[in-house]
């Protein structure tokens, strides 16, 4: 597989209903919310975990940062895990997550500090969110001798539409001797989309991918930046009352304008949009294919 030659930018929009997209471990596992603006925040690590789990569980890919158990059921240590690879070169060759996101290991004789060619910012909701506290019960006691189950409590968001933005940097891959292939990047995109949909955990069910865009550049060292700042979610409802993707429309006017302005620098655009998402361009409803006419645009098929 040929190594990537081009810079590209990724915009990913997904939503979550009645669940917790990313809990803060030192804040009662509450969803992260910027108190000043009411905007929900999701860390980059959460998205990377989604991609890793999907690629490992469904695509048979080797993943380095993974919870693995040995024959006795004990989890493997970083040393054990590293011992499975000949050297760092071998590790990079085998593990797709190291090629994409880099890795830092401080194990004796095997130190490695790789900056990932793929970097994501923290995701942010495109509207103010409402936080709800839910109490429930468990039916099975946690300890022998207990006569009853106990109460559970958690914080959820009734709804949050979240935008992630990232950059794939071809120089970062080349400079560090990472053979990041086009196929790796395709798998990343698939992991983002399908992994988000397939997360089968209580706190993450109700996640749906809505929009994925990869802008691939031919102009060397150039990227537009801030794709996430060029979209807006507009709704007739108050932000906190939004409960569904159909409660609003995603305005892509500014994004398309910027793409057209830099048309000469762009080689192609890969995209995927969910059918329940309504897109708006200059006040009119539009489908993504139409909005991207004039570009070499490929709909992603996974």
């Amino acid at each position, binding site marked *: 597989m040929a190594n990537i030659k081009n810079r590209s930018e990724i915009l990913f929009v997904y939503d979550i209903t009645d669940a917790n997209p990313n809990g803060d471990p030192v804040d009662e596992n509450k969803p992260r919310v910027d108190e000043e603006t009411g905007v929900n925040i999701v860390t980059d690590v959460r998205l990377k975990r989604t991609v890793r789990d999907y690629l490992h569980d469904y695509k048979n890919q080797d993943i380095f940062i993974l919870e693995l158990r040995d024959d006795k059921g004990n989890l493997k240590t970083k040393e054990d895990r590293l011992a499975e690879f000949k050297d760092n070169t071998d590790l990079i060759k085998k593990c797709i997550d190291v090629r994409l996101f880099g890795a830092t290991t401080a194990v004796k004789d095997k130190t490695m500090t790789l900056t990932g060619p793929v970097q994501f910012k923290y995701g942010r909701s495109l509207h103010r969110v409402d936080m709800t506290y839910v109490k429930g019960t468990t039916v099975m006691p946690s300890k022998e001798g207990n006569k009853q189950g106990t109460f559970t409590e958690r914080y959820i968001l009734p709804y949050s539409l979240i935008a992630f*933005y990232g950059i794939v940097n071809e120089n970062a891959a080349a400079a560090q001797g990472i053979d990041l292939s086009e196929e790796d990047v395709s798998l990343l995109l698939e992991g983002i989309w399908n992994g988000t949909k397939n997360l089968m955990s209580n706190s993450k069910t109700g996640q749906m991918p809505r929009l994925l865009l990869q802008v691939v550049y031919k102009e060397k060292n*150039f990227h537009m930046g801030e794709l996430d700042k060029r979209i807006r979610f507009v709704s007739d409802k108050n932000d906190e009352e939004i409960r569904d993707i159909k409660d609003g429309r995603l305005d892509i006017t500014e994004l398309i304008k910027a793409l057209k302005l830099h048309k000469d620098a762009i080689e192609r655009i890969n995209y995927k949009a969910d059918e329940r998402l309504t897109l708006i361009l200059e006040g009119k409803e539009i489908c993504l294919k139409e909005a991207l006419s004039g570009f070499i645009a490929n709909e992603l098929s996974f």
Partner: protein
Amino acid sequence: MMKTLVFDVYGDFGHFKKFYTTSSPLTFAFPPPPTVRGMLGAIIGVDKNDYLDVLSHDKCKIAVRILSPVKKIRMGLNHINTKGNYWIPAKKGSHEARTQIRTEFLKNPAYRLYVCHEDDQIQNRFVENIRSHKTVYTLSLGLSELLADFKFVGLSEFTERKNGEGHITTVIPMSVIDEYGITFEKDKKYFKEKIAMEMTRDRVVERYEDVIFEVQGKTIYARTNIYWEDEKGERIIFF
């Protein structure tokens, strides 16, 4: 006269870790000089092992201006627990798999950077890349995931002047300020932080300095033994 490149960098979050905080990382209000050099290295593509050399203090002058009021937010992050120099990804005895780190971030940080490299070739690479919105490596604000964007502002001629007083737009190292040289004005908030000024390529800090700044991005009226002024009368202090 110093041909200086002026440009803005900004993002959603920033984190410039204070050197004396490890397990509960706090952030400086602005990127210290070694960090700025790293950002410049990313823009023109100097390897992370070389940038402190190629863009060192004596070759590359930089000044930093705070553009938007400094706001901070704290979030808990899950780190892997490597206490005892090993990592087991599960609870084992008293060893927890993960450790929660409450980390301080800057919110919507924005800075204006003034850059002047003695090597014309390198300076031109800065100007060309910033002008055409290009970076060789991905630009971030302190941590790799805190992606930054940037905007060309202009090219200015800054002239070095000795002993004078006036409004200074950038953050100021205390060492250039005369004794009792600051005029404290109403509605301004003055802060002082000790930051790393010079660092060798082995990442050994050779000089720390106290730096004074106005936290809302306003100017500071000060009497200094050195300052640089451009044709429009903007006064800055290079580190």
